């Protein structure tokens, strides 16, 4: 008789479902989310050293929104297109991780 194994789960590869175990890495993988152009995320972990805009202000494409300092470099974060600042999620002096929502625009 073949051995019986514990902790088996269903695992689909293409059209078939197999009984198997998962790895930690597989279980903790992040699902894909399509990027939202209205959300300005940090592309590197760092510190917000300056914020140039206020909630509600109309901003032209190319205008600096804030400075994100990381690895001793001051990175200018600029407006990707003409629009309005819907909300600001960070304050001056805070340290943020990568992919943190900094500003929402419309």
């Amino acid at each position, binding site marked *: 008789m073949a051995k019986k194994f514990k902790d088996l789960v269903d695992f689909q590869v*293409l*059209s078939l479902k197999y009984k198997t*175990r998962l790895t930690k890495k597989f279980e903790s993988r992040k699902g894909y989310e399509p990027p939202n152009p209205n959300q300005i995320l940090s592309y590197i972990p760092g510190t917000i050293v300056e914020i140039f805009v206020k909630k509600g202000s109309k901003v032209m494409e190319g205008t600096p929104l804030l400075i994100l300092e990381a690895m001793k470099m001051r990175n200018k974060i600029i407006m990707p297109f003409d629009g309005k600042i819907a909300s600001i999620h960070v304050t001056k002096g805070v340290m943020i991780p990568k992919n943190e929502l900094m500003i929402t625009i419309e």
Partner: protein
Amino acid sequence: MSLKKSILDLRKRKKKVQQGGGEKAIERQVSMGKLTARERIQALCDKDSFIEYDLFVEHEARGFGMEKKELHGDGVIIGTGSIYGSPVCVFAQDFTVAGGSLGLMHARKITKIMDHALKMRVPLIGINDSGGARIQEGVNSLAGYGEIFYRNTLASGVIPQISVILGPCAGGAVYSPALTDFVFVVDKISKMFITGPSVIKTVLGEDISMEELGGARVHAETTGNAHFFAESEKECFDQIKKLMSFIPWNNETKSRTFPPKPPKVKGKIESLIPSDPKQPYDIRDVIRAVVDSSDFFEIQELWAANIVIGFGRLNGETVGFVANQPLVLAGVLDVDSSDKAARFIRFCDAFNIPIITLEDMPGYLPGVDQEHAGVIRHGAKILYAYSEATVPKITVILRKAYGGGYIAMNSRHLGADFMVAWPTAEIAVMGPEGAANIIFKREIESADNPEDMRKKKVQEYKDKFANPYVAAAKGYIDAVIEPSETRKLILHAIEVSASKEAMRPKKKHGIPPF
């Protein structure tokens, strides 16, 4: 000085230097649960076999008060010894002497023993326990690291190189182990990282402990940097000795042979395999049912467990196994498992070890994360490694061999010398359900009862294609065998390939998709 006096003087000098960093530093080393560098060498080598070189080397650093400092052996012990009677070159960093920090003479000693190992064509074992570069020696330490990396690279594929991490190994120092063939780590003792927790905290604001960042378990389970994980230093040295029994001295010799022994596993091999092809089994049980004494020495057991790699013996001779593991992620190929298998295949090929591939896999793992992590590039490594290898290559297909995975797992098309399949093998471009849905799309959609039609067509496809006989009819596999014939057949294949000669076009070197 009389002869007797000078001998006594030598003994006195030796004794002084052999104390390393002195009693206090040794006490600290012991309190961290670590052996001293000298004890480690004794534990690793055959009794009384170790001969030390460069015991009296002293550093030449000036400035920062270094001229007043006496650093015994400059913080590293080098020499030659033997393991089970086979010669090895060894260096062991001595953390009790200036934290095992690497200065110019320290590096010179290491490169000296590396040159020796390469010239004598014997394996090199490096025991790493060092705080890193000796800051006072500035660019001389950097030069030292660079010269070590250069030699690691020259020696790669010529002599086996083993790194043992028994303490911190941080910054540039990690790249020497990374360039070697096997890295051993011990729980709570080994620490490896490029930048430590304090730098990460100040620069990026991320808070992490040393253990979570680069402890033994992290490298054995998550990063794949380590090949062997042990609970204690003693267990670690036993693992190294066992590994040494499987591998040859250099690329021009063969591994030592042992008296042939039958597998210990009783009962039929087919009883290990569930009748439902969707149910898993542990592929290592199959390997144990095939190898001598059922002794399978697994490598990187905790990382990318969906593929199993390791050494065993067949009729006393070392072979390498690469096997899909249906018990983990159904045995799919993905970024990590391709990487793991490819490197092992290249090791076996470099050191004249035949490769046995056991195949049971549903294909490459689908997913955005896999595609974006570069599964194309990493998956290509396994194709490259198998195609490039000229050692005897034998494949046994147990159950599923679908699509790209069938090609990748040492297929005939990549140069397998022997391809055999069990009668349960399914060699097809994809699983029957998927294939039927595509081929019979119209018939299924236009049927009065599509679900019934789908089932019928899936069965039709299964009967026709989900077997080894279509591939056998083309000569893509050489034989369909009963599972109980597996060991006999592999033994035969190895015997036949004893003087295999595979031609390759002349080149400087290939460009594998690293």
